[in-house]
């Protein structure tokens, strides 16, 4: 899952990037409002974590601009401003959630998952596909009741494919969701991860659409 982190504080930004990466997110970190807008225009993100007090362009301005362009990407505001007024203003400007510094990394993760869940339109916290159950909160996967050990990137890839069941995802889309723009990516990285995934959960579930990408069918194969 690809996350855009907008935070001007060197230390907090670094910490967040490490923390989110631990959870298998691909994190792009920018330090001002202008850079945030540039990245939002050129890259695809599943969620934006936005600080409000930013140089060049404030977080609220970035948010307003984003919404005025019709983007519905989930935005979680992360700020030191704790007044009710500020929170109301932030949410009214189009934020989906609001967290006040200092926050708990686990709570931040849970909120990101909640936002993802809402976005995909499902109510359950786990994703079930036939005999496969994956739990984004605990990063665990079960196949026919047996736990399956996946690397964070494999997990993210599987989660992404399951979230968009019935749709073909291109190789670059999948690549973007597991690598940040700074990561050095081998040209066949996605293929390698898919190959490993198929070995662990069976080769039938993820289908290759030649020349386009990969898909998990809407209805699980019996």
């Amino acid at each position, binding site marked *: 899952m690809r996350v855009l982190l907008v935070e001007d504080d060197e230390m907090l930004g670094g910490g967040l990037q*490490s923390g989110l990466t631990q959870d298998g997110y691909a994190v792009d970190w920018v330090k001002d409002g202008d850079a945030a807008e540039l990245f939002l225009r050129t890259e695809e993100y599943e969620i934006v974590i936005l600080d409000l007090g930013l140089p060049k362009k404030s977080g609220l301005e970035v948010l307003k601009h984003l919404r005025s362009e019709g983007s519905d990407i989930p935005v979680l505001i992360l700020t*030191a401003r704790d007044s009710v007024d500020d929170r109301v203003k932030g949410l009214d400007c189009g934020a989906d959630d609001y967290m006040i510094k200092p926050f708990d990394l686990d709570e931040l993760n849970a909120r990101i998952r909640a936002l993802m869940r809402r976005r995909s339109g499902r109510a359950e916290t786990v994703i079930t596909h036939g005999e496969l159950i994956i739990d984004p909160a605990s990063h665990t996967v079960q196949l026919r009741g047996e736990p399956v050990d996946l690397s964070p990137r494999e997990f993210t890839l599987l989660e992404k494919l399951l979230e968009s069941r019935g749709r073909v995802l291109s190789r670059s889309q999948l690549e973007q969701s597991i690598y940040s723009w700074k990561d050095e990516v081998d040209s066949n990285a996605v293929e390698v991860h898919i190959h490993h995934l198929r070995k662990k959960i069976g080769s039938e579930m993820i289908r290759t659409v030649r020349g386009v990408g990969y898909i998990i069918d809407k209805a699980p194969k019996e």
Partner: protein
Amino acid sequence: MSASPTPGGPQPRAPSIRRRLFWLLLPVTIVVWVVTALNVYRDTRNEIRELTNAQLAETARALLNLVSHEYYEEQNFRHKAENEQVLPDTQEVPQRLAATLHQYEQSLIFQMWVDGDELVLRSEQAPDVRLSKLEKGFSDEIFGGHNWRVFSVSDPEHKMLVQVAERQSQLTELELYVSRRILFPIFIAIPFLAWVIWFGVGRAMRPLNRLADEVGSQDVGRLERIAAHRVPVEAKPLIDALNALFDRLQRAFENERRFTADAAHELRTPLAALKTYAQVALREPNHEKSQRALGKVIQGVDRATHLVQQLLTLARIDPTRWEPQKEPIDLAELASERLAAMSGQAIEKEIEISLSSGGREDVKGDRAMLDILITNLLGNAIKYTPMHGAIEVGVQGSDHEVVLSISDSGEGIPEQDRSQVFERFYRRERERGSTPGCGLGLSIVHRIVEIMGAEIRLDESHLGGLLVEVRIPRCESAPSPAKGGRA
């Protein structure tokens, strides 16, 4: 033993305007009244005396005229009568005279003498000895147990002397009568007057009580000005002073509140970073990575500590509690001390640092504050000067001030940003994230500059970076003679 107030002893009564006015107004009123009464009494007595004198004189003259005329005729008649051997009764008072003597008959007496020793006529009560030895004018005599006012008038032509006397007791009665009319009401009026003053003053004080209620009901967090339209004119200066105080307090509170909010806000980010890195370290299975995260935690603590330190410094530099030290401070010496203490940081970055001063330069101020000022400015210069750069510190004195200048070869501050850098927590975009700092250093410097009555100016330095110039007033008085002689 010195007389110290005993804690259990009676408390001295607080001064009361009501009591004070009461004890001022009442005696003064009584004194004025009594003095007035005495004046009226004296004037009345004099008036009565004059009146009596005039009356006596008039009566005497009228009597003399009448009698001398009568006597002249009588003499003629007697000359005739001597021939006829008929003498009139000397005791007989002519009818016309009796009419003039009706009023104070009991107290008014007269005698008429001819040739100095012959009593030819007298009123009924008059004695047959001369009333007064005087031939002319007023005199006071005593006879028959009474004081008498006597007026004598004579007619040398006919060798005639008339003396009229009035009993003095008659006068005193009159005086008493007049005085009682004025003095007596005072004794009835005093209690009433006291009551009126006591309650009148109390009533006049009522707006003050209302004012006290209004001041007392003020919310400390939200001080409001007191509307001046309902207060008495006398209380207006008090209201104005109170309102001015409220305004100042309000501003101070506002400032304090904003400062606390700012401080809380600024502390949240480093704390968030701390917590994040601590959690990252906890969850990280890779030992090396978790060690790195823990290292960041330590860094974060240092940074938060610095921020707290700066916040405390800023809070401690309280303009209201500051008093300049009496001792002059040698700025050149202080600058060289600070420079020596901080040279380690400069050497690390291989910065060439130099101090130029022309010997002792005394300024007025506070050593600790000047220390903070120089440390902050020098620290900034070192922080923003790149490796192998240069910093020049100068202390130059003139007649009224000493100029501390710090030039560096850093990037400097563009002109449009220079006014903002003194604001609390302001950090220029360029340095945010890239240079450690909390945006308080220059605020602290600015506050110190304000308190000491100094001036600060930012400009481009000849080294290409920033030039900070602080003009500090010189020590006004010469060094104290005890030390000055040896200096």
